[in-house]
């Protein structure tokens, strides 16, 4: 797509660095050598994902394109790019902070909402993020009950986290604004696959994304770094 000069704000990265609390540094060192993309597992399976281009846009100020892109949400967080980078750019941290930035602009909330239950239902209630009932990566049938297996191995049926500890992390969550944040996006359950029937499935497939996630107004994201092969059907 044609870009206009006023799409670019060169100073964004400089302004943003102090807000990002030292988590992001050194993007201006990027040589555009492409070593990151060459080994990237996400780039190997996504038609348009390219870490090199995201860094390029960030440093050169085309922040609009980065934040509104779907590609920003396709990173695998494998840190392979960091391991291989000749100038030591910790790209996964950039993605992490950029996603927070994108959320502040109203992008990507559907994805975050999907994951919010891990924090609310598991982390803050049990102190453990992955519950025994968790089906992700989705499993069709389990072999045996985990509690039984634990008992056979001579361990308590369930790993216990003390009430005190749970109270403490809830307190941290309250103090740091995480609870507030979750209240903000609570409200609608987006996809409840456990209650899915063929009818719901049909509906669900044709359903567009909600305009709102909780109290937050959301925006569409776009394939900003290339057209996916096979068009939007491949999304």
């Amino acid at each position, binding site marked *: *797509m*044609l870009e206009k000069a006023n799409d670019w704000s060169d100073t964004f990265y400089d302004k943003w660095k102090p807000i990002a609390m030292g988590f992001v540094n050194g993007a201006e060192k990027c040589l555009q050598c492409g070593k990151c993309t060459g080994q990237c597992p996400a*780039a*190997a*399976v*996504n*038609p348009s994902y390219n870490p090199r281009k995201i860094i390029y846009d960030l440093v050169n100020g085309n922040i609009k394109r980065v934040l509104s892109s*779907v590609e920003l949400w396709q990173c695998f967080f494998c840190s392979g790019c960091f391991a291989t980078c000749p100038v030591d750019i910790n790209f996964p941290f950039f993605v992490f902070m950029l996603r927070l930035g994108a959320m502040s602009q109203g992008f990507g909330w*559907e994805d975050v909402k999907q994951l919010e239950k891990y924090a609310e239902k598991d982390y803050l209630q049990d102190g453990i993020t992955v519950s025994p009932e968790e*089906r992700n990566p*989705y499993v069709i049938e389990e072999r045996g009950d985990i509690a039984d297996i634990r008992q056979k191995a001579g361990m308590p049926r369930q790993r216990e986290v003390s009430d005190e500890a749970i109270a403490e992390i809830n307190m941290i969550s309250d103090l740091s604004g995480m609870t507030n944040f979750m209240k903000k996006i609570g409200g609608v359950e987006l*996809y409840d*696959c456990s209650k*899915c029937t*063929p009818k719901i*499935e049909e509906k*669900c*497939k*044709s359903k*567009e*994304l909600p305009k709102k996630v909780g109290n937050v107004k959301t925006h*569409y*994201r*776009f*394939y*900003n770094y*290339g*057209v996916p*092969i096979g*068009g*939007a059907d491949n*999304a």
Partner: protein
Amino acid sequence: MLYKIGSDQKKNRILQKIKSSGNDNLNQCLQCYKCGGMCQKSDKFDYTPRQILEQIIDGLEESILNSRAIWICETCNECKIDCPVAINFKKIMASLREIAREEGIEPNTEEVNRKFVKKAHCPKKEDD
């Protein structure tokens, strides 16, 4: 998306066809980006001329023939006039269209919807 470079360049069908239609200076391309910058249509392209060229050399047949750029190009040949090595893009586009027609690929000039719509989230098998 990951692609592989074939070990034998001679098997690269699309490159052979383009070359046989009188374009023998493909590998003179400097990848200087001038063509994409000056073309009046390039904001509509999914691939700029130099990218098409790079893909021809690597033999990415599927992606070239399905691209919109080969149909949107107005074959004004202004890029040849400006090209530092005078690559005849009009001819290349013409032969690409010909190949695409032979393959039965419909001309595709519609604006692609870049909007992200999330669908395939369901864990169930599609044909259940």
